């Protein structure tokens, strides 16, 4: 028990003094997960919206696939990306394995289905509301998608935040494709796993607090956003 208290104290000291390692790891985590978020959103938001307004033959199957992909175990994603990027894999020549880029790729694969699925649900609702008006105004497909994305931007931001929350807390995939290399690919979650294994609870707890703080921040933001959405205050 004493050991844990000492760990917590030391963790606070690390945070308050802005310990070099802690800051570096936190920044890398943010860099990787924010990059993944931007790329995943650029794919998932238009795709989810398109899926909501477009009727086509395999729509149901596509949605089912999307929901199934949402449940992909990150470790498996990590394994697949590893195989693709490894020396003997199809993209081996690019030398991306064990770089932040590889971690971003893995996280994009993990969160894109999640963001697309939330987007699709929200946009379907908005589309039902706007449908008659947008058809009547003779809008083009592009104009419809733009209108829905703009007027649904709060819900979309919520979707994106949910994706970010998943990305920043994810450990399995980035451990495999990033390799948890010091000063190169070490991020919050993989560092916590490593330090805990080594018995360095101070750093592990310090990193843990940062991670929890980030997760709380994201959740508060989602909560605040969905409340303004419900009350219809823009």
């Amino acid at each position, binding site marked *: 028990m004493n050991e844990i208290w000492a760990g917590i104290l030391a963790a606070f000291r690390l945070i308050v003094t802005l310990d070099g390692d802690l800051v570096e790891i936190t920044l890398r985590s943010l860099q990787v997960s924010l990059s993944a978020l931007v790329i995943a959103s650029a794919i998932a938001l238009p795709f989810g919206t398109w899926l909501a307004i477009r009727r086509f033959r395999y729509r149901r199957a596509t949605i089912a696939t999307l929901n199934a992909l949402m449940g992909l175990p990150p470790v498996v994603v990590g394994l697949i990306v590893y195989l693709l990027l490894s020396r003997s894999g199809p993209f081996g020549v690019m030398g991306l394995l064990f770089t932040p880029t590889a971690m971003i790729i893995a996280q994009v694969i993990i969160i894109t289905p999640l963001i697309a699925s939330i987007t699709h649900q929200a946009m379907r609702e*908005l589309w039902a*509301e*706007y449908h*008659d*008006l947008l*058809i*009547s*105004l*003779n*809008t083009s497909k592009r*104009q419809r998608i733009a*209108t829905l994305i703009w*007027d649904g931007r709060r819900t979309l931001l919520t979707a994106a935040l949910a994706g970010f929350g998943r990305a920043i807390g994810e450990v399995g995939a980035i451990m495999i494709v990033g390799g948890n290399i010091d000063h190169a690919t070490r991020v919050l979650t993989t560092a916590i796993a490593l330090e805990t294994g080594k018995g360095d609870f101070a750093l592990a707890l310090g990193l843990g607090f940062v991670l929890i703080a980030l997760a709380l921040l994201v959740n508060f933001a989602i909560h605040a956003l969905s409340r303004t959405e419900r009350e*219809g*205050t*823009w």
Partner: protein
Amino acid sequence: MSVSLRDVTVRRRGKTILGPLSIDLDAAGFSIVLGPNGAGKTTFLKILHGVERVTDGTAEWSVSAEEARQAQAYVFQSPIMLRRSVGQNLAYPLQLLGMDKADVAKRVLDWAGRIGLSDALERPAPRLSGGERQKLALGRALIRSPKVLFLDEPCANLDGRSTREIETLLLAAQRDGTRIIMTTHDLGQARRLASDIVFLLNGQVHERAPASEFFTTPKTVEAKAFMEGDIVE
């Protein structure tokens, strides 16, 4: 532009909700569609506007379908508000045309004044009262100066004064060359505005006549009963 419907039938879930009916509407005038609830008035308007699927028959405008739709505006029975401010709702149809910002702003101010919402420009449209929404929907429809305007009970929740204001706007639009096709349950309003009447009953055009004729000498007993406030079946 004029329109002609030939043997138009609309079936939904095995039930015929409109037609078969054939009718021609000229390029000018103020037609009012009357009929009891469920007669098919909304369906009729949507067919003309081209947003409802026709099961059988044809609905053809004198110009191409694309051109026709672009020159029309429709005010829905329950107004659809974009989740934006009043001003942005008014601006939206103009922005779709790619009109430049200064022109849009000028027209928005002008129309906000005409529909009596100048003070509400910044307010979120979904928070307006029912009557204010109807006025906004009307302003948003007229702001493009459409050649044809469809209105589905535009004054249903309005008080006497608002109704007058809207009627004034509609008559002004008609003078400026907008052809109007409108439904209403307010017979006084029909008398004040209509140039001709389309009386729908059970999905059929039961009677069609110039307004003066229809109100003084209706040809069918059902139309007569309808005007006297009896229940028609």
